[in-house]
Every structure is written in C-alpha cells, then in structure tokens.
C-alpha cells in the first residue's frame, strides 16, 4: 500500500468548494466514475484528494494490492476497505527464489486470512506470491467466503494436498485454482476428487507443480463438466497416451500445459494426439513438455500457427526439433526455451517470430563451466535485430561482449525488462577482457523505458554511474558480484528516480553509501543486501535515522546481541512500513532499534 494516511484537514476554500460540489454531486456518481479507475496507483491518488473522496473511494475499492505483506497491518487494511473482493499480497523478497532467504523467515498468510474471514464475507479472489500458506489458511478460505472464485498461489509453500481438498470441496463457484511453482506437500492425488459433481464453474486449473499421480478418470470427469475451462496445466504424472481424451472433452481450451510428453512410440497414440490437437481451434498457449520424445512433436504442429505463447523450457530437445516447431509459430509473442535452441534456433526465431515480445532462454546445464551447447551472445543479438517488438528478455549464457550489448541496445530501445545472466560470476567481455560496463551502459542509455534490469559479468563502479545517470524509469535492479566500492551503490541510490526494489548479493557495498541515502529507502518498497560489507552498527544507525523503515538483519551464525558493531551482517532487508516492526521472525532475524526484551514480550503476547 503506497498511500499514507490522508493529510490533516484544514478548512480551506478548496474544501468549501468541494463540499458544495459534493452536495450537488452525489456519491453514487463519484463511485461510478471511480469504477473506471482500476490502477492501484491511481486509486491511491484519488483517495488523497480530500476526505470525502477518501471515504467514497475506500467504500468502493474492490481490488487491493499489497506488494510487501509487512508494510501494512492486515487489520488496518481490511478495516479501510471493507468491500474488497480481490486481494493480492506478496511476501518474501525475490531472492527467496534462489534460496538466499533462510527458512522460517516469515511471510505468513495466516494473519491476513484471519482478518478477511471475519470482515469480508464477499471476498472472491486471493492471489499470493512467496507466502507461507498453511492448510489451516486454506480451510479458512474454503469455509469463509461463499462467492470465492479465484485462488492463485505463486511460489508459495506450507500447505498440502489436504488443504487443496478443502478448497475443492467447499468453493462451489471456484473459477480458478492456480498453484504455479508452489512447494506443495503432495500427500496424494485424491484431493481432486473432492470437487463435487455439481462444480462446473472451473475456468482455470494449474497443477503443474504437483508430483503425485491423480486419478485420470476423476480428472477427465472434472474437465468434461467444466464447459468454461480455458486454462489447463497438468502435472508431469499425466500420461501422454491419455492426453487426447482430455482434449476431446475440452476443445475450447486456450492454454494447455501437457504432462510428460513421452510415450512408447505407437501409431495409434500418435494419431489420437494429432487428431485431438487439431480439434483445439482456440489454443493459443502451450507449456509443460517434460521428458519430450521428439517423435511426438509433430502431433501439435496443427496448432502452431495460432500460438501466441510457447513454453518449452523443460523440454530437453535439441536445436533442430525446437527450431522446427518455432518456425511454425509466426504469431508467437512469448517464448521460453532451454539453451538447446542454440544460436541457430534463435536466428530462426528472429526470422519467423516477428511478433515476439518476450524471450526467456534457460540453461540446460548451469553447473558446468564447459558450454554444452552452442548458445552465445549472438543468438540474443539476432533476436534483438529481427524481433522489433521485443520488450522483455531473460537470457542465460556463458559469454557476452560489450559490442553485443551495444548492438542489442541500439536494436531494441523499446526494451522494458532486460535480465542477463552470464553463468560465471565476474566474467569479462570475452573478446576484450574488459568489464561489461559500457555494454550495460548502452542498454540503459538507449532503452529509456527500462523498468527492470539484472546485471551480471565483470562490472566496476562505472556501470552504476551509467545506471544512476540514465536509468530514470528503472523500478527493479538486481546486482550480483559487481562493483568496486560504495560509490557504485551510491550512484544507484542517488540517481535512479523510479527505483522501488533493489536486491544485491556479494558486492563490496557498505555503510557509506547506505547512510548517505537513507531517505531514498523510504521511497522504495525494499532493499536486500546479502554478503556485502554493511556493518551491524550502520544498520542500527540507519534504523535510528529512519523510524519508518524496518531494518532487518539476518544472521544465522550466532547471537547478534553479542556482536560488535563493526562486524558485517550476513543479510540485510530494509523496507518501509506503516505497521512498525514485525514479531513473527525466527531468532536469527532482528529488527534494528527494537529492544530485545520488548521483542520477546511482544512475541509471547501475539498468537
């Protein structure tokens, strides 16, 4: 929640005008106007206009987005927006995806669901990312909201298939159940049979993260009685031989995630599959493709011309097979692949997929230094040249050069998201052995709309100077193994006007830059620094200077209370909050500025 509380009200001419306007301008009209304003930022701004607009806005707000679950108190949020229908909350810092955030860190959904269960009986949608959701939470959802429709759990954890059974059994109007990449305690596949026969409302089901086998007949029956099913993402255990029966029952599918794409090579299986795919005239997106047997790939050729989204990033198929499919997809907008595609395949993409907006290339063998495939910077350069609508790039590779980066930047000034991961930390320009400062400098120079950037390779303070000067629209920056001195961090904090999220690991950034830019941190959602050079003392000073920041120090080595101020902290997470410090942390996390005795007392007091 970005908006602070409304300003103190003083009687001014403006207020007088507004209130007289208010009397001839019924609330209902304003509400109606506001219903067209959906962006969270805009709604927040509307609420700041004056007290009456604040009140009207809060009563008609239907969707809320909380980017950091600890920035606000759930009770206060729910009290402010009693008619909310859709809640989206994010928990752990992004680096939790890479195991940098220790277990037990927090991000519990329970306090939120408690408030919502009490106060929002009409809640319809919950979307969570990187939060800890227990079966108890799911049970509460299942029994508290009569109209519950949408549950999206993205990279969440803490629940089991028992909790899913509760959702299936009780949410009569469930439209969307999406478990994308969550870590589910998969006890069995039986939960799916808890969907009652009367449940026909499903539009979207994503169970791709589950490992257990589900009863195929239960799945089949569920699909058959869900005429509005548009998105179906199966898990690996669903056998390819039987996929055709599911497709027969859901020819209206728009997005399909297959299970394992392998079976014994049999002509009847092949024919059935080909036939089934050809009936899916609405299909626009494909994903899944674990364990691909290439002989079965032609079965889906008939849908390729309509595809706008293709995710082959689990498909360990070689370049010719990948390339063949992709060249049949002229309407592709989003493509995810493994680096098996190689430069030749990406060259083909640049020629065939003129509508491409988003490209993600993942490494097939990230932990070996030897390149196992011929994928270099050239592939990305080609795509940047040929795909004029390209906006978003995630690219893992083993070599990069300043000249390639510069070409990419010049080719594609419309890039909004550029994430490059050169696998070896601190790898220089492989041609000149220089740092990649000028290459990334070119990116931020040309791509003026860049909102998200991830750096890698050998980088000095200079690249941060470029970023600070030029990346004015940059909102999220990820830095690893880069920079020389505090100056690097200072450039970023003092220069990037739009910065909201900054995450840094293994960089020689320390106290000076942090303490010189304390007020910047309150304009951002959060800052993560791990394995850097920030001292405990600096964390304490930061916390003293900025009372509305939670300065959380994570240190699994031992007792923080007895450490000298000069010692470096393992990990630091700083975020603005109107909720004050949290008390649900494990013992190795401390909020600076908190009296330890008070903390222990508060921890005991809170349930």
């Amino acid at each position, binding site marked *: 929640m970005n908006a602070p509380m409304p300003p103190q009200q003083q009687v001014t001419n403006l207020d007088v005008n507004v209130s007289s306007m208010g009397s001839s301008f019924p609330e209902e009209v304003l509400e109606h106007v506001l219903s067209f304003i959906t962006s969270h930022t805009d709604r927040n701004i509307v609420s700041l206009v004056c007290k009456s607009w604040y009140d009207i806005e809060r009563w008609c707000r239907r969707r809320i987005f909380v980017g950091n679950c600890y920035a606000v108190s759930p009770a206060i949020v729910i009290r402010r927006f009693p008619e909310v229908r859709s809640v989206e909350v994010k928990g752990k810092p992004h680096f939790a995806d890479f*195991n940098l955030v220790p277990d*037990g860190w927090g991000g519990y959904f329970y306090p939120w669901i408690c408030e919502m269960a009490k106060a929002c009986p009409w809640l319809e949608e919950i979307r969570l990312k990187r939060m800890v959701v227990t079966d108890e939470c799911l049970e509460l959802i299942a029994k508290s909201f009569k109209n519950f429709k949408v549950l999206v759990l993205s990279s969440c954890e803490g629940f089991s298939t028992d909790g899913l059974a509760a959702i299936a059994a009780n949410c009569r109007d469930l439209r969307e159940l999406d478990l994308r990449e969550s870590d589910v305690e998969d006890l069995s596949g039986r939960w799916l049979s808890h969907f009652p026969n009367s449940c026909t409302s499903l539009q979207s089901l994503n169970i791709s993260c589950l490992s257990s086998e589900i009863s195929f007949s239960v799945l089949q029956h569920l699909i058959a009685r869900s005429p509005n099913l548009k998105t179906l993402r199966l898990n690996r255990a669903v056998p390819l031989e039987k996929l055709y029966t599911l497709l027969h029952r859901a020819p209206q599918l728009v997005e399909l995630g297959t299970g394992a794409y392998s079976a014994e090579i049999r002509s009847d299986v092949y024919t059935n599959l080909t036939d089934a795919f050809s009936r899916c005239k609405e299909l626009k997106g494909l994903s899944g493709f674990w364990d691909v047997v290439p002989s079965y790939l032609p079965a889906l050729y008939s849908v390729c011309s309509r595809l706008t989204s293709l995710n082959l990033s689990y498909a360990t198929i070689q370049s010719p097979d990948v390339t063949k499919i992709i060249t049949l997809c002229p309407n592709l907008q989003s493509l995810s692949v493994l680096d098996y595609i190689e430069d030749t395949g990406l060259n083909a993409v640049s020629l065939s997929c003129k509508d491409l907006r988003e490209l993600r290339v993942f490494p097939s063998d990230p932990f*070996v*230094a030897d390149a196992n495939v011929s994928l270099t910077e050239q592939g990305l350069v080609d795509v940047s040249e040929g795909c004029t609508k390209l906006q978003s790039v995630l690219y893992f590779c083993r070599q990069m050069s300043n000249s390639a980066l510069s070409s990419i930047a010049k080719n594609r000034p419309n890039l909004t998201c550029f994430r490059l991961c050169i696998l070896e930390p601190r790898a220089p320009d492989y041609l000149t052995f220089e740092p990649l400062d000028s290459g990334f400098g070119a990116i931020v120079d040309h791509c003026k709309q860049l909102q998200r950037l991830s750096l890698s390779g050998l980088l000095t303070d200079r690249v941060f100077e470029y970023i600070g000067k030029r990346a004015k629209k940059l909102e999220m920056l990820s830095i690893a193994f880069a920079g020389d001195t505090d100056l690097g961090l200072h450039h970023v904090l003092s220069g990037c006007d739009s910065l909201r999220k900054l995450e840094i690991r293994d960089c020689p950034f320390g106290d000076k830059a942090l303490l010189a830019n304390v007020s910047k941190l309150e304009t951002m959602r959060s800052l993560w620094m791990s394995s850097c050079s920030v001292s405990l003392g600096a964390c304490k000073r930061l916390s003293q200077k900025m009372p509305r920041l939670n300065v959380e120090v994570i240190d699994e080595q031992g007792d923080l209370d007895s450490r000298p101020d000069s010692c470096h902290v393992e990990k630091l997470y700083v975020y603005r909050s109107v909720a004050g410090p949290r008390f649900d942390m494990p013992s190795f996390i401390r909020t600076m500025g908190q009296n330890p005795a008070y903390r222990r007392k508060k921890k005991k007091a809170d349930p």
Partner: protein
Amino acid sequence: MDQITSEKHLHTQDLNLKATELRLGLPGSESPERHINGGSCGGGGMKNLVAGAKRGFSDTINIASGTWVFNDNGKSEVNFGKNGGFLGENKNPNSMKDGVVKSSPKHANHPQVSVAAPATKAQVVGWPPIRSFRKNSMAAKKTKNVDDPNAEIGSCVYVKVSMDGAPYLRKVDLNIYSSYLDLSLALEKMFSSFTLGQHSTLGSSENPLMDFLNGSEYVLTYEDKDGDLMLVGDVPWDMFTGSCKRMRIMKSSDAIGLACRVAGQSKTAASCKRSIQRCNTSIL
C-alpha cells in the same frame, strides 16, 4: 591463503604452454597474445586479470565472514585448486564458436585435482539464479536417466528436513556435503536452536550431534525414493544422496520400531535402541 595457492598454480601453468585446460580464473580470461596463438592458458595477462578478479573474490569471502557454500562454515568452499573458478574449468572459448562443444570428461581436465569425492563440488548458493522448481525438475530428469555417478554432478537437490516439534522445516542441498559427518554437523547447527531449550547439557562440544542424539530422544531418518522410512547412515553416502527424498529428525521412541523392521528380526526395545545408537555412531 587461497590467493597464494592459486598464484602457485598459475606459475605452474606458466611453464605449461600446452593448452592445459585447468583454469583458475574466468572463462575467456586470456591475454591478447595468447588469443592470436590460438589460445593456450597461462601467462602474464591472465595472471593480472585473475589477480584482479581474485582480489574481488577473496575480498568478498573475507568481508562476508560467511562462505560461498551454504551453511558450510570454515570449510574450503571455493577450492581453487580443485575446480578453478566457481564452475570448474573452462575450455578455450574459441572452440565454442565452432559449433557444439563436446563436453569432455571432467576428470581428464583436472590434472591437479586431489582425491576428492567427484560427486560434490563447491557451489555458490543461489547462483546461477534458477528457481528450485526448475532445478528439481532438471535433477529429477537426471536421476531418471542414468546410473552414471557423474549424472548428479553439479545438480542441486533440496530435500526438506523436518524435526518433530520444530516451528518450521529446513531445506538442505545434499550435494554440497561430502559425508555423513558434514551433513550431521550442518544439521546440528540448523536445529540446535530448537533443542537448546529442551536439553541444557549438551555434553562435550566435540561431537555435538552425537551428544545431542544420545542425550536426547531424537534420531535422524529419511524417506527414500520408494517411500520407505530409513535410518540415516544405513547405506553408503553416495547411495544416500541419490535416494534421499526427505529427512526427518524424529523421536527415538517412534524410531525404535523402525530399527527392528530394518533389522528383520525381532528385538527387545533395549537392543533396538542400541542399534539406533550404533547407526548414529556410524554416521558420525
């Protein structure tokens, strides 16, 4: 210390003008002259670059006062002698341009590798930045395919470790440990905070896990690929890492029946407990 060792290696390389494949620095870190020659390693340019890069590495290690490797304090984590760089050595990057590079067997390229377990390798936590779901998917695929002991090299498999009564699970990457001792020390650190309250006397600090296990009522068990609950330590380490899906620190009283079943004979409760202690001893 690491810096000295690596510079020593570097000097050795100066004398080897053949295209030895052991690298201590970064891929592509060759001086221009060598580039023209068609690329052999070693030499002045590289030394400077590597030294420069090394400063960064060692600075980071010192400053962080932690280690590269997850939860592995004080061990030789980024072992430059063993692997070179963090990923292991790299071939001449020129060869990459010619087409698909054939990955040569790793051991042939490690002339200086000491007798270390090939299955584990120093890895930086969270790098490259790939989500667990993807890592586990790829790892699952590898274990499916081959019985080749090299198949799991470099892969990273997180298994959950739960402890009866603890407020949350931990996840550990088995591939970063090379023995049961390593693992047990790491686990002891992770879970000691949960037990301090219960067991104030931990005995000698030399073998804290042993004390902990003996003095307390806990044993270390795991669930294998077939879903069976086993005592940790029963099988050779490599077999364990390949088959362990999940670990559980459970109360001895719950585990006694397990030991009896595993032994395949009927035993008295007391001798079962002795078996468990023997298992724990063999771990440590």
